[in-house]
């Protein structure tokens, strides 16, 4: 029964770690100071074009946020290490020190803001949904789909997951896990759900290549338009201020617009939202 001793050791080690608390020096050091001292910036990202994406394990990371971070890192004189994460785990990765900050793209939502600190909004993206092309569903109000016979697919941890839990309490929620943003849309194609929710950019790309589904809302309408922001730990105030200033500089100097011009899919940046 040697495995029993090993299990006991692990439990005791975890208990000891939880009782000992963090090292004071680690807590006192802001992530920005750590980045400058080690000359390495560990940046988390969720694979999502056009903001940031990678086509394979060995392929280079690219996208608008990739260009922005590289510009910031080069001005700071540090190297960037990219760490892929997902919507459910990015807060954990931040709070455990696996990454210094996360560029997402992550929506700024109230529950998330309780766990991490967000920068100023960088871009705005709406949410939409797909239904089978044969579906007679027409969404006039959200109450039209809040029925027990409607199956709604969302991605666990994504903004529409929170939306569905609050606004679609009567519908059957299919909350899929993992990092694949198209999973709720695939669920509709496979007949697993009547509606699949996701951000509009992903929905539009999916609808364009899947004739068996159509957009839930015609004419480019969206359910919620939410801001994207980069996330830092709540303790890292200096890194947070530094990133805010960097984002303002890159936006005002036209660098963000320049990066976006290279991408086929367009985002709405703060300057264009009020237009």
């Amino acid at each position, binding site marked *: 029964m040697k*495995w*029993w001793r090993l*299990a006991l050791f*692990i*439990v005791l080690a*975890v208990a000891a*770690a*939880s009782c000992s*608390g*963090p*090292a004071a020096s*680690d*807590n006192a050091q802001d992530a920005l100071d750590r980045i400058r001292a080690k000359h390495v910036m560990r940046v988390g990202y969720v694979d999502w074009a056009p903001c940031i994406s990678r086509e394979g394990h060995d392929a280079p990371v690219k996208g608008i946020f990739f260009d922005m971070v590289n510009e910031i890192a080069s001005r700071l004189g540090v190297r960037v290490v990219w760490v892929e994460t997902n919507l*459910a*785990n990015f*807060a*954990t990765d931040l*709070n*455990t*020190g696996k990454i210094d900050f996360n560029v997402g793209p992550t929506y700024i939502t109230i*529950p998330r803001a*309780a*766990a991490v600190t967000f920068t100023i909004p960088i871009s705005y993206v709406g949410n939409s949904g797909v239904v089978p092309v044969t579906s007679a569903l027409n969404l006039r109000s959200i109450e039209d789909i809040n029925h027990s016979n409607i199956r709604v697919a969302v991605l*666990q*941890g994504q903004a529409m997951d929170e939306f569905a839990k609050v606004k679609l309490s009567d519908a059957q*929620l*299919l*909350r*899929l*896990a*993992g990092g694949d943003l198209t999973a709720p849309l*695939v*669920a509709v*194609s*496979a*007949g*697993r759900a009547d509606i699949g929710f996701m951000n509009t950019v992903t929905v539009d790309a999916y609808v364009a290549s899947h004739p068996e589904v159509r957009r839930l809302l015609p004419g480019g309408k969206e359910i919620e338009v939410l801001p994207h922001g980069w996330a830092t730990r709540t*303790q890292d105030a200096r890194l947070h201020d530094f990133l805010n200033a960097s984002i303002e500089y890159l936006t005002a100097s036209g660098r963000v617009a320049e990066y976006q011009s290279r991408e086929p899919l367009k985002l709405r940046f703060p300057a264009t939202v009020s237009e």
Partner: protein
Amino acid sequence: MNYVWNFSAVVPYFPSLLRGLVYSLELNTISVGAGLVFSMVIFAARTSKSAVARWIATAFIEVFRGLPVLAAMVWLFYVLPTAFGGLPGPAGVACIALGANYAALQAENIRSGAEAIPGEQIATARSLGVGRFTELTRIVLPQAFLRSLPAALNQAVNSFKLTSLASFLSVHELFFTSSDVIQASLRPLEVYTLMAALYLGAVALGMILVKLVQWRLLSRFGLAWPG
């Protein structure tokens, strides 16, 4: 490490985690139960005189023994309704994938057990005119099943660990529930630690039961098992 531990923040969510654990256990009980019955059918087909039955059984074993359980789950989840309409919900698909994987492995365990049966027994039965079906159900399967039991029980414990994969299909088992609790409590490491402790506790209990059953069967039937 600069994480500040706070287990008291996740205490209110402990009942939710326990419900997730119970659901994982239910999922495993159904999968293993169905898999156990099906493994005997597969074994019977594998040793059948019919070439078609043998071919189907072999194909089943090779597919579900070789395919990662997560790949089988996701494939069945998306492809089954596309090909056949409605069919099982997420939990049903998880049970099918886990049960099929278990059946494929256990059918091989039973085959190993059958090979250990002395050839004289079969020869004697045939010389006395015992039919093929009676030979299988009264002589071969009972002994082969008993001999394969230790491996079957260990495999059942492994199958319990694989239930966490059902979280990908929106099945509210322990892993999925833990992700939900993390979102609600914002205490990831505490929840992951509790989740690991619950899995470990359940597996430890399972292993004790395995040892008890092995000891009981050993004393009852006097069979010598490896390990």
